[in-house]
């Protein structure tokens, strides 16, 4: 018996070694870099043909970026934007994840609250920003609130869906070893739902960034959104593009960071799915 165990475990580790072996060919980052270089070159060539009011191109945007950085405007705007973003987004995670878990796990809570979450996801928040400004003023609080409201729902809904996708058999394991409801939620449902939660957070990053800019458009006083709208009003298109590009780069970096966290907290997920794409 021990011998067959050894043999099957050997075969197994060979299989593991095979899947983790590096695939030949160009690494992913190189493909991405080439794609970016081609894209930027094309933009530069065609962007220069256009009237600078109607469009811009990478070198002009880079020059504007340099100006804004030297004057300290960009740094100031970035801080003004990121602080409320972090607070709002953090609150959205703190509220959204537990709320989603509880809605998914308990039928009564789902029936009582689920409908608000589903409806809230489709809420045209832009229309409500003026009202929120009346309540919360023009500064930090209103930005954080808008970011939170926009990112809360995808996080909550994904956590909720994740719970409903937890195999019943794993819950049975908890029950048969006499785990309490709370223990089942914490030790079985939460880890099993983690990949869904992380996907929800990823979706929410994009929505949160958009929410932040919308809030700043309305107030037009501070942050990257204010830089965008003020530059646009002055027909300074290259300058307008600077915060747009900065935000896109930031969101991409944040997405990569969340991906890295996901692989760290849920390493089994990548291995089960085998993420081996060509």
């Amino acid at each position: 018996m021990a011998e067959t165990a050894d043999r099957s475990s050997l075969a197994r580790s060979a299989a593991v070694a095979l899947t983790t072996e590096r695939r030949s060919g160009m690494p992913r980052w190189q493909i991405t870099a080439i794609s970016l270089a081609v894209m930027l070159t094309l933009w530069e060539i065609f962007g220069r043909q256009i009237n600078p009011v109607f469009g811009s191109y990478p070198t002009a945007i880079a020059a504007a970026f340099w100006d804004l950085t030297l004057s300290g405007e960009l740094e100031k705007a970035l801080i003004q934007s990121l602080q409320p973003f972090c607070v709002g987004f953090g609150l959205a995670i703190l509220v959204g994840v537990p709320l989603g878990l509880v809605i998914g796990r308990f039928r009564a809570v789902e029936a009582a609250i689920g409908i608000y979450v589903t409806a809230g996801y489709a809420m045209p928040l832009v229309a409500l920003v003026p009202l929120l400004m009346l309540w919360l003023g023009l500064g930090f609080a209103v930005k954080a609130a808008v970011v939170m409201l926009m990112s809360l729902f995808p996080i909550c809904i994904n956590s909720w869906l994740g719970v409903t996708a937890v195999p019943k058999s794993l819950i049975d394991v908890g029950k048969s070893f006499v785990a309490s409801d709370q223990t089942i939620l914490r030790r079985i449902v939460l880890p099993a739902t983690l990949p869904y939660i992380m996907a929800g957070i990823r979706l929410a990053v994009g929505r949160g960034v958009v929410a932040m800019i919308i809030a700043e458009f309305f107030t037009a006083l501070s942050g990257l959104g204010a830089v965008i709208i003020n530059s646009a009003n002055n027909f300074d298109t290259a300058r307008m593009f600077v915060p747009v590009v900065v935000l896109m780069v930031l969101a991409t970096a944040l997405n990569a960071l969340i991906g890295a966290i996901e692989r760290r907290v849920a390493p089994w997920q990548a291995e089960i799915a085998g993420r081996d794409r060509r």
Partner: protein
Amino acid sequence: MGEVSLIDVTKHFTLRVGREAHTVRALEGVSFTVRDGEIVALIGPSGCGKTTALRIAMGLETATAGRVTVDGKEVRACGHDRGMVFQQAELLPWLTAQENVEFGLEMKGMRGELLHQTARRYLELVGLQASSNRRPYQLSGGMQQRVGIARALAIDPKVLLMDEPFGALDAQTREGLQAELLDLHARTQKTILFVTHDLDEAVVLADRVVVMREGRVRETIPVPLPRPREDPATVRGRPEFATTRYQIWRAVHDLPVTVH
């Protein structure tokens, strides 16, 4: 001690097909006892209610009527006096083999160094000490089920309940694990109730075979093979093996037991 009895257990549930509601009679007055240290196999065609009976014995489902007792005391919910082994092992994928065994023990309130030691001892018992740090997806199906068995045995239950524990494994691995289970039983003398649809498995492992059909116990067939059992290869060659297997086969197929 470890004796589990189902007494007159009935289970009905409502199944909605389109607009019609059907009452499904999954179990009708099922009674049998697994005596202390005995291995009993629950066999029957699929849909006969054998898994439902086992899940009611575990407390994962409630009976419409009837009682389940362990050592004469009625049980109404899951308890540490019964250990469950699931069909697909059902290990928690984010935990290592060691941590999966520890999970069951922690639910029993065990902590600290004793927890680690106990889990390690049971992994050794099923021959997996070298793989204790692997996660389930790094283990073969047979190894996963051994962890499942270790997890259930570790809480030292009075009764081990197994739901087609080897049904998802290939024939070779299955036979290996059957031999291993016999060995475990010889060493621990645990009372075992297991569900299977495999006639050979029932004869090789069990002292008695309870045959179910359409939610009722139709027959209980004793297996006239001595304990401790010889290794399964030898057992399969014995004439009693063939006759008992044939007897069970006729009972499962609802044919009268007449040997020509």
